[in-house]
């Protein structure tokens, strides 16, 4: 299983790429593997404001529906518009073509709560 070192991670199995005050969010390799074949993705709209912990989207496999939660608070500035038409990108390329949204942070403090790769790996093994 692949967990890039330059990303931060959440207990909900999302990854976060931090670039100044812009964060890119997706679901991890572990999450896509657990979900199985992903067949549907629902994303928020650009301009939506999200509080940390809000549901911002839905990922559905053949069998199950899973919510995706905002790991930080902020405004949605970009969404991966190709994803709803190609939900399998979440399985095939979770960190690249499978990115979900970009947010502009309102409070960078929440970033401190995210796990680094070592902590996330340990979390996954325990899970």
């Amino acid at each position: 299983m692949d967990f890039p070192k330059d990303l931060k991670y959440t207990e909900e199995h999302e990854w976060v790429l931090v670039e100044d005050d812009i964060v890119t969010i997706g679901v991890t390799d572990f999450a896509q593997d657990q979900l199985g074949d992903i067949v549907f993705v629902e994303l928020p709209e650009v301009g939506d404001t999200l509080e940390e912990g809000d549901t911002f989207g839905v990922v559905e496999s053949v069998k199950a529906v899973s919510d995706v939660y905002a790991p930080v608070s902020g405004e949605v500035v970009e969404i991966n518009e190709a994803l709803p038409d190609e939900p399998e990108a979440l399985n095939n390329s979770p960190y690249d073509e499978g990115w979900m949204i970009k947010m502009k942070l309102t409070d960078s403090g929440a970033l401190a709560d995210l796990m680094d790769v070592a902590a996330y790996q340990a979390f996954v093994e325990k899970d």
Partner: protein
Amino acid sequence: MNKTPLNQIHRQLGARMVDFGGWDMPVQYSGVIAEHKAVRTTAGLFDVSHMGEIEVSGGQAFDFLQYATTNDVSKLTDGQVQYTALCYETGGVVDDLTLYRFAADRYLLCVNASNSDKDFAWLQELLKKTDFSDVTLINRSAEYAQLALQGPVAANILAKLTSTDLSGISFYRFEEGLVAGIRTIISRTGYTGEDGFELYCAAADGVTLWQELMKVGESFGLQPIGLGARDTLRLEKAYALYGHEITAEIMPLEARLAWITKLKKGDFVGREAMLKAKEAGLLRKLIALTITTSGVPREGYPVLSGGREVGYVTSGTMSPSLKKGIALALVDAAVAESEEPLEIGIRKRQVPAERTSLPFVK
């Protein structure tokens, strides 16, 4: 948790295991969509040993089954299988099952895994309450392993392992024969809508039968198939699943199962309630819906007409063959017979759902 004789095989194959009604079962091996496609294009092998088998024998076995089940047992000849149901006096369903006639005085019922004990207790109770004295009921569930070999090339694979003439076994018929040297009930039945077989053998022979089939099947593209694809395959063909389309609260007549409900055959359990309901006019009817835009309908989602809730989804999924959301839904009979446009409530959205003729996948 209950385990089938093939439990170790599934683990060796790296299957994802789940608790399915108290059984430790594989939900997927390579992935639901790939497995689904294998069954539609080549062949798949399913461990369905969790299914229950109940033997009914004796001089009055026929009369008892004619009274206990909804379909007409008199239509069966030796070596024939019938899809049927056990119902409560209320007309609700105890279970749906396949009934095998070995002889006029010997039958085998193949029932749903999670209902197996309930069904056996129900039949015992029914026997006590009635005058059928020459009937013996034996729960043989633990004695059998059952594998389903399904797909367009299933017969080609099976032919490599048996001298039984498979062309002589037509749909919903069975024969006893040897497969890879193992005594097997070879039944041309299944739950996928493809050609194929359900193979019953002694529990102790299950692993060998699986291994022999996989070995011979490899060059035909045979894949192991989990419960995930079993569900999408049956739903594309609109086959009812107990606990979803049929329950203790849903009559077969409401669930498009009038064809197994022979009200004219004479008395049977549930008949009176069904006749009454039919005379008064059925209140609900099962319909098929396809999402034309995007979204996946799921069990329990509401069905709406002009914003009014008129029913609910009993089973829904993303059809791997059609790449569209498909659903079976139980709705008000008046709505079912009308042409009012319908929507399915998916989270906060109301998504247009088109009425579809069955099966979803021809």
